[in-house]
C-alpha cells in the first residue's frame, strides 16, 4: 500500500527543512523526500558531517544550516534520504527510487522545494574535463573535502566571490577571476541601489568578500569577452579578451558561474504556469503570496520559485507550510494571516538587495547568445548554430527544435540546455521568451532502469 501523508515536501534544503518543521508544528503528517544522504540541500550540504576545518573555511552562513537540520530532525517529519523522485502527479502521488527499489507515497498537498541549478553557461570548450561549475567546487569543499588547485574562476556574481574567499580561507587562492560583468552593468544597476541599501547586510558581505580577494592578490579581469576553454581531451588553458587585449592563462581547472536559476523540472512536469522573468533572465513558476502555484494543492518554496537565497528559502518554506496547513484545515484563515504577515515582511526585507545584484551581475552575454560552433546541449552535442538553423526552418519553440535536432533529449532532460534553446529561438524569431515557451518535461524526471520500472507495483496506484 502507498503511504499517505498530509504534505509531501520534495527537497531537504533550507525551504524544505523549514517547511517540514513548520508543517509538523501545525499538526500535519509530513514526508520529506531528498536525493542526498543527508539533509541540507546544496547550500548546507553535509553541514552536520563537515569538520571544524570545513566550517571555518565555509563560514558562519554555512554553519547556520545546522539550525535547520536540527529543526528537521526534531520535527518528527519522515525524512526519506537518498530518494530519487522520478514521477510526480498533480493528485499528489510521488514515485521515487531508494537503493534501486521503486517506492511510492501520496500526499494531499505537495511542497516543491527543489532549489536552483547553475545557469547554463555555454562557452567554447565548456564540455572539457576540468571545466566545472563553481557550485561543483563548493560541493567538493563541503562534502568531498577537496579544494581545487590553481583554478580559474569565470563568470560573475556573488557566488563566484564567495567561492574565491572560501578558497583563500582554505589557503588555496584561485589563479585568477575572469569576470564577465562590466562597469556599464554597475551603472545600469544604480537605479536599484536605493532598494539594495535597505538590504545593506548583503552589500556589506559582498564588500567583505571583495576585500579578502583583493588582499590575497588574486588577479581580476573584468569585462572579459571571447572566453574560450581550450585543450585536447582535457582543459589546458583559458583564453579571453579584455577591452581588445588578448589573455591566456594555463590551467587544468576552470569553474564557471553566472548565476543560478530555479530548478523547474517538477513544476514543468506538472504543467504548472510559468512566466519568464526579465530581471532574473529565466522562467519562474507562478506563485502567490502564500507560495501556492497555479495548482492549489501544489506549493513552491525557495529558489525553485525564484532566486532569493537560503534565508529567503527558509522563510518561504514556512510560508508555504502555513498556506498548505490552512488548505488542509489545520489552521484558520485568520490564524494564517497573523502567522504569515511577519514572515512576508521579513522575506520582502531579505529580497531588497536582489534587483541590484541581478542587474550588477547580468548573465554573460557570450553565453546567452553563444557563437554558432558552441555546444549548447551537452548530452546530445547540439551547437548554437544548429538551433539558429532550425529557427530558420520554422521552429518557433523548443519542442519542435528538440524534434529537429535532439537538444533536450539526453539524460539531463534539458536541465543544461533548455533556457539557452529558448533564448536562441527568441532571438532568432523575435518572439518573447514566453511566446517561445519551454521544453516539455515528462517522467522519468531522472533516468531509472527498465528493471526498476518493471518492478514498480501498479496495484499500489489504487489508493
Amino acid at each position, binding site marked *: 500500500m502507498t503511504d499517505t501523508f498530509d504534505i509531501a515536501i520534495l527537497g531537504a534544503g533550507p525551504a524544505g527543512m523549514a517547511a517540514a518543521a513548520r508543517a509538523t508544528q501545525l499538526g500535519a503528517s509530513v514526508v520529506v523526500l531528498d536525493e542526498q544522504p543527508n539533509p541540507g540541500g546544496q547550500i548546507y550540504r553535509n553541514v552536520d558531517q563537515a569538520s571544524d576545518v570545513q566550517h571555518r573555511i565555509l563560514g558562519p552562513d554555512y554553519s547556520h544550516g545546522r539550525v535547520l537540520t536540527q529543526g528537521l530532525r526534531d520535527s518528527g517529519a519522515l525524512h526519506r534520504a537518498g530518494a530519487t523522485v522520478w*514521477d510526480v502527479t498533480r493528485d499528489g502521488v510521488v*514515485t521515487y527510487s531508494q537503493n534501486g527499489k521503486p517506492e511510492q507515497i501520496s500526499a494531499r498537498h505537495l511542497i516543491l522545494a527543489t532549489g536552483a541549478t547553475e545557469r547554463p553557461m555555454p562557452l567554447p570548450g565548456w564540455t572539457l574535463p576540468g571545466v566545472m561549475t563553481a557550485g561543483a567546487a563548493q560541493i567538493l569543499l563541503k562534502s568531498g573535502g577537496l579544494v581545487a588547485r590553481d583554478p580559474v574562476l569565470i563568470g560573475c556574481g556573488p557566488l563566484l566571490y564567495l567561492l574565491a574567499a572560501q578558497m583563500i580561507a582554505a589557503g588555496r587562492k584561485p589563479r585568477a577571476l575572469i569576470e564577465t560583468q562590466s562597469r556599464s552593468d554597475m551603472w545600469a544597476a544604480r537605479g536599484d541601489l536605493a532598494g539594495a541599501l535597505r538590504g545593506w547586510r548583503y552589500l556589506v558581505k559582498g564588500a567583505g568578500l571583495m576585500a579578502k580577494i583583493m588582499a590575497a592578490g588574486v588577479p581580476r579581469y573584468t569585462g572579459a569577452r571571447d572566453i574560450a576553454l581550450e585543450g585536447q581531451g582535457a582543459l589546458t588553458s583559458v583564453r579571453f579578451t579584455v577591452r581588445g587585449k588578448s589573455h591566456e592563462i594555463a590551467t587544468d581547472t576552470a569553474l564557471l558561474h553566472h548565476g543560478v536559476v530555479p530548478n523547474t523540472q517538477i513544476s514543468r512536469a506538472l504543467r504548472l504556469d510559468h512566466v519568464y522573468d526579465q530581471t532574473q533572465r529565466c522562467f519562474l513558476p507562478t506563485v502567490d503570496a502564500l507560495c501556492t502555484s497555479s495548482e492549489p494543492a501544489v506549493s513552491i518554496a525557495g529558489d525553485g520559485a525564484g532566486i532569493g537565497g537560503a534565508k529567503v528559502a527558509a522563510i518561504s518554506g514556512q510560508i508555504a507550510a502555513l498556506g498548505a496547513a490552512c488548505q488542509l484545515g489545520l489552521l484558520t484563515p485568520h490564524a494564517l494571516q497573523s502567522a504569515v504577515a511577519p514572515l512576508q515582511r521579513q522575506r520582502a526585507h531579505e529580497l531588497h538587495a536582489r534587483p541590484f545584484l541581478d542587474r550588477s551581475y547580468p548573465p554573460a552575454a557570450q553565453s546567452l547568445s553563444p557563437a554558432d560552433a558552441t555546444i549548447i546541449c551537452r548530452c546530445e552535442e547540439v551547437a548554437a548554430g544548429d538551433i539558429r538553423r*532550425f529557427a530558420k*526552418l*520554422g*521552429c*518557433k*519553440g*523548443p*519542442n*519542435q527544435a528538440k*524534434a*529537429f*535536432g*535532439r537538444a533536450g*533529449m*539526453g*539524460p539531463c*532532460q534539458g536541465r543544461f540546455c533548455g533556457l539557452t534553446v529558448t533564448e536562441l529561438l527568441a532571438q532568432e*524569431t523575435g518572439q518573447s521568451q514566453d511566446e*517561445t*515557451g519551454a521544453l*516539455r518535461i*515528462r*517522467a*522519468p524526471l531522472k*533516468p*531509472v*532502469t*527498465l*528493471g526498476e*520500472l*518493471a518492478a*514498480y507495483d*501498479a496495484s499500489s*496506484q489504487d489508493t
Partner: protein
Amino acid sequence: MTTLVIGGGVVGLSVAYGLLKQGAQVTVIDGSDTDARASRGNFGLVWIQGKGAKAPHYAAWSRSSAKLWQGFAKDLKEATGIDIAFSQIGGVEYFTDADALAQDAAGLQGLQDHFDGDYPFEVLEHSRLKQLVPEIGPKVVGGIHSPMDGHVNPLLLLRALSVAVQQMGGRLQTGAKVTEIAGGDRAYTVTLETGERIEGNALVLAAGLGSAEYGADLGFDAPVRPQQGQVLITEKLPFFLKYPSGRIRQVNEGGVQIGASKAETGADSTDLPTLQDLARYAVDVFPLLEHVQLVRSWAALRVMSPDGLPIYQRSTKFAGAHFVTCHSGITLAAAHAGLLPDWIQDRNTAPDLSLFSESRFNV
C-alpha cells in the same frame, strides 16, 4: 496555381514534397510548438506485417509505399544531405504469448492467400528465433519475421521534409493558428489568428486531429479521434538489435525505443502503470535491458479514423479540396509523396483510392 497544405507534419510535408516535385506551387501552414503532433511522437516504423489483415486494399497500399521507400529516402538525402537512417532489412514481431502468435500468424496467412503467395513472412519458434536474434529471453515463445518491414528515424524524416520543401520553393508558414478556411471552387482563403490571409486554388487538409475542426467548412466529415500511445527510450547502447519490431527497436542514435500502448484518450501525458507494462514487456523480450537506464518517455496521439484506415477524400462541396489522414504517416510517406500528387491534381495516373473515401462510414 497554389496548393495550400493545412498541416506541416509528416503527412502534410510528404504531400507538399510530392507536389513540389511535380512543379506545383505549395504553401504549407503549420501550427504551434505545443500542438499534438504525431510526427514528433511516433514509433518510426515502415511496417507491413499484420497491417490490413481485414482490409487487403490497405495492405496493398501500405506495401506499395514500402516499395517506394528506398527511393524516397535516397531522393531526400540527395535533396537535403540528411540521411534519415532508413533500413528495410526486415522486421520481427516478438511474442510472449503463444495464442497471440498463432492469431497473428493466421492473419498473415490470410493475407498471403489473398495475394496469391506474394506476402512473405515466416513464423519462427523460440529456438529458430534465437538463432536470428540471440538476445531474446526465455519468455519469448516465438516470433514472426517478414522481409517487408523496416524503420527510419522519423524526426530526421520530419526535418528532411521540412528542408526539402523549403529548398524546392515551397513556403512553410509555422506557428500559424488557422481561424477560418473559406472554400469555393478552386478558390480557398485561409485566415490566421494574426489576421493574415493566405490564398490558393487547391487545398489539402492534412491537419491530423485538427482536421476535425476544419473539415465541415470544406465538405468533409473528418471523423478522426485521438488514440494515445506511450513510448519509452533508453540510454544509447552499442548496436545490437538488427531487426525492428512493432514494439521494440533500436534507433540509429543507439537508444532502444519501446512502445507503444493504445488508449482511447486524448490526454498526452504518460502514466506509470502503462510505462511499467512497456518496460516489463521489453525486459521479458530482451533481458539484457533490465539494467539499462530509461531516459525519456512520452505520450503521443494517433490520428484514428473509425476503422483505423486512412481516409483520402475529395471534397463533394468544392472542387480542388482534399482530405488526407492516416495513423501510419511514416509507412505511407513514400506513397503520399510519390502517388498522392496525381490524385490531388486529378490526373488519370492517379491511384484508385475510392475504397478509402469517407463514404465507407455512411453505409
